[in-house]
């Protein structure tokens, strides 16, 4: 590896969050952005082809060294690290609305989901996944929400453009068939009337 690639490896290893190419460039005043990108590629190849258990991942507009998936279960079982807490159904639905409609106000979120959203908005804000990005011009100047870079980090996305386009989803005029039912909670819901 070149000295620059080694320097970037040290920086990425020490950082607790994804680091942008611009931030990495400040490590070496001699290096151009293109040099940094080339060195990152070299580091990535080094990890990929020399049998390393970590990899360079592009996340939330930056780069981060993460362990490979193959080791997740073992690490978790040994309680050496903790998984990122799972998002609840309400949180996921709310994030779905915000990520596609941002900046978006509470009323619109509630209208789409058909339930009040005050509690889940507060929780998402506390977890740093959404933030207030402004105020609407509408009556009462309601707050408008948008997603944060921690949102991208939590979902393993490089940027918002990585989200599928809305028309890529197959919302048919037919009710979804059981195999399309996404989660276990739907199965639980389905069992309810059977008991009555």
């Amino acid at each position, binding site marked *: 590896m070149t000295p620059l690639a080694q320097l970037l490896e040290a920086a990425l*290893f020490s950082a*607790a*969050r994804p680091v942008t190419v611009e931030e990495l460039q400040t490590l070496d005043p001699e290096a151009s952005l293109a040099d940094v990108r080339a060195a990152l590629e070299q580091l990535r190849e080094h990890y990929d082809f020399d049998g390393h258990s970590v990899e360079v*991942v592009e996340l939330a507009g930056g780069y*981060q*060294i*993460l*362990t*490979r*998936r193959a080791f*997740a279960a073992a*690490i978790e079982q040994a309680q050496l*690290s*903790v998984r*990122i*807490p*799972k*998002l609840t*159904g*309400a949180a*996921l*639905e709310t*994030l*779905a609305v915000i*990520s596609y409609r941002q900046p978006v106000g509470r009323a619109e979120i509630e209208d*789409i*989901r*058909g*339930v*009040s959203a005050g*509690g*889940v908005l507060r929780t998402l804000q506390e977890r740093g996944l959404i933030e207030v990005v402004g105020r609407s011009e509408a009556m009462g100047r309601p707050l408008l929400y948008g997603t944060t870079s921690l949102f991208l*980090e*939590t*979902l*393993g*996305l490089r940027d918002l453009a990585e*989200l*599928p386009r*809305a028309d890529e*989803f*197959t*919302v048919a*005029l*037919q*009710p*979804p068939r*059981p195999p399309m*039912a*996404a*989660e276990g*909670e*739907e199965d*639980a*819901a*389905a069992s*309810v*009337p059977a*008991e*009555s």
Partner: protein
Amino acid sequence: MTASAAPPTTALGAEPGFVVQLDAFAGPLDLLLHLLREEEIDIADIPIARIADQFLSVIHELGLNQAADYLEMAGRLLRLKAQTLLPRRSEEEGWEDPRHELVRRLLEYQLIREIASWLDKASERRAGQFSRGYLPPPPELPPQPLAIDLLQLLLAVEKVVSEISVPVLHRVVPRPLDVEGATKRIEALLEERGEIGWLDALGAERGIADVLSTLLALLELAKRGTVHLFQRAAFAPMVISRDAPRPAA
């Protein structure tokens, strides 16, 4: 939105109390989609009367009939039911299917559900990788119970009390009165000369404190009979003397 963890069967009991089962469904739209799926109904041609009745019976069974979100949807469905039951003149111009708005909302919600499911898979995938030194968000611990012995308590009280600033109402400033010094000075002067004047007794320093010190010293000495104070004539300067005044000739 939070919900009780009790199984649905408890809500089905005869208890008319406030039993809410919000866990089963993510909201009224979710429940509605569930009913359509159960009945294998085409979303574009919903038999409103039947679905409205089913919706009402399910929310009643689950104790959701007191949750505002579900009640609002129930009201909406009943209004739609009434609209569809009303006879309408055929080929009426500008007639719009009253179910249209509901279908739009259901489709939109379904899209959101699919996006949410995509996000869930993405976060699941991301959670399979660990960054170096990932710190889980600290759990919200309740404050520790207060464990303290008497000594610590007293020390704490002392510390608090010592930090309370007492408001200054009146401060007594010690005046530099030096009666003793003035007494010595006067005695020394009278040792040299038998008789001195007030200004001699006062000395070089003539501040208010010096005047008072000298005056007090003189009065004290006069009281003890060490010196004699007198005037040779009315309004004449005061004479300070070791000896008693000679009677005027």
